[in-house]
């Protein structure tokens, strides 16, 4: 059974490249382009993934707010989360770690293949 990766990202091209890379590596990928959509899918519809890749800058909520919502939900609170962003800010990074984000990855440092490797390492 394929492992499920949920991508919370508002840029269509980024969703495209990482989804393609992850699918090529054998993962099942779902995505949401806003915080509300992500919360609706994961918490309300109960689509619990094996790992979440979370962007920090989204149109309706920021990544830290989404992470806080996820950590409040009984089913979603233990999902591993990797922050995947192009916005480097040490304060946000610390807040992410406080909310048990496991990694803080800079998108520009990770090709789809490299990201798939990191995800694979976590979910093996």
């Amino acid at each position, binding site marked *: 059974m394929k492992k499920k990766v949920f991508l919370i990202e508002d*840029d269509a091209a*980024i969703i495209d490249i990482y989804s*393609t890379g992850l699918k090529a590596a054998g993962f099942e990928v779902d995505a949401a382009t806003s915080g509300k959509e992500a919360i609706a899918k994961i918490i309300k519809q109960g689509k619990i993934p094996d790992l979440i890749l979370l962007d920090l800058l989204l149109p309706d909520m920021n990544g830290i707010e989404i992470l806080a919502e996820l950590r409040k939900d009984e089913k979603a609170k233990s999902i591993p989360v990797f922050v995947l962003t*192009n916005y480097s800010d*040490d304060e946000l*990074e610390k807040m992410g770690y406080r909310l048990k984000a496991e990694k803080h990855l800079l*998108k520009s440092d990770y090709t*789809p293949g490299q990201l798939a490797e990191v995800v694979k390492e976590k979910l093996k």
Partner: protein
Amino acid sequence: MSFFPLSCLITSFISFIFGIFVFLNKKNRLNFLWFLTSISISIWSLGFFGVVYFTGYNWVWFSQYLLDIGGILIPISFFNFIIKFLKLKNGYKKIAIFSWLIAVFLIVLNFTTLFKKGMVPYENFNYWINPGPFYFLFPLIFVFFSLYAFILLLKKFRESDDKIFRAQIKYIIIAHIIGFGGGVTNFFPQLFKVYPFGNYLVVLYVFFISYSILKYHLFNIKILATELFTFAISVALIVRTLLAENLYDLIINGVIAILVSVFGVLLIRSVLKEVKQREQLEKMAGDIKKAYEVEKKAHEELQRLDDAKTQFTMATQHHLRTPLTSMRGYIDLIMSGTYGKIPAKLKEPLLKFEISTKRLIKIVNEFLDISQFQLGKQVVSLKPGVKIAPILQEIIEELKFEIEAKSLYMHLEKPKEAFEVKADEEKLKLALFNLLDNAVKYTQKGGVTVDVKDGEKVKIVIKDTGIGIAKEELSNIFGRTFERGKEAKRIFTTGRGIGLYITNEIVKAHNGRVWAESEGLGRGSAFFVELPVG
């Protein structure tokens, strides 16, 4: 003459001289108001002298008018002096005009029996005022304006930061308490049948105002006071000489008069010199203060612009990196065959495209790192137990292609121990990469040796046989001006000199230090990184 009338006469005389001094020194509104206050005190005190000294009713009655008119004018002129001295503006002009109207009203009233009915014997005095039914307005106004002036002085004393101004206010307050406190007791016999014991104190106000003049330059009359003092003594000595009864006295007094006059002139010259120097110093201090303020303002403006620039760069980082991420992502997917097999002739251009994209990402990351350093942000997240050797090994692997292409050697002296430091692995790798990349880039023959040494701190030494660094360029290579050596510019024209600045900032953020040594151009370089063990 008993002491009471004598004290009145002294106060009158000193106040008169004092008022004239101030007015003659500089004819401005402030000095004029102090002149009015001093003359009012002088008239009041002269009147008082007449009341207590003369025995004839008419002289006493005339003196009482002088006493009352002077007494009415004292609190009003003093209050106006304080408004001017404290530079009070809003609304105080109207209060000042109103105070003068009250003074005029009381002076007119003073000529009626509503104010005073006549003079009657009182205790030791031959005559004392017999107040009319509206006499009480006089002490009431006296106390009101005295208290008002006192409150204004106290308020300004608390608010002001100017030390000299505060000292001036302090001595005026002391003089005010003593002078007005003593003066107000003169109302006691007619109001409460109590002896005017405080009158002796009035003369002391002169002492405190004089102290303020000499020490804190109130009214700036030091020169004039010295001149008048010297002149008065000289005149007295000359008169004494002229009135000498024999030749011996004439010679002695004459010599003394000449000596005193000469020393007096010297004293005046010394005071003039001192005042001139003080004025020059004050002017210089003012000029320095102005220049400092202009410089400070310019610096703040530059700082603001610099912050705005850095903030802008930070804000755009997301927008710069996102399209680059997509470009790099798509090329990665194409190259890995996700979209099918790549035609052979496309492979090389695609590889070049990938290299350029990576280079662009590196440049953007460097700029953003610099912005973060300049914003004073914490760019490293330190974790203990980071091993140095694997990081160096990884970097060497990444540089393998270039090392082989230039036929250089690369020796990593494997440390006996697995040195661990407290570090941000990614950032430390970037810092060390910049040093190794430079070593390879600027070495044409020979190679690079990397050594890790133990001690209290972990020391990484990167030695190359490259172009070397001129002595005069050594101190600038890690600076924020991104200096590059002349030879470095010639060998590698597209370099930006950013790498060493970033390395330095990262190492500093690790509580370490980085430095370079070189015997000179063409004699290789050695870069040292020292990090705390952790």
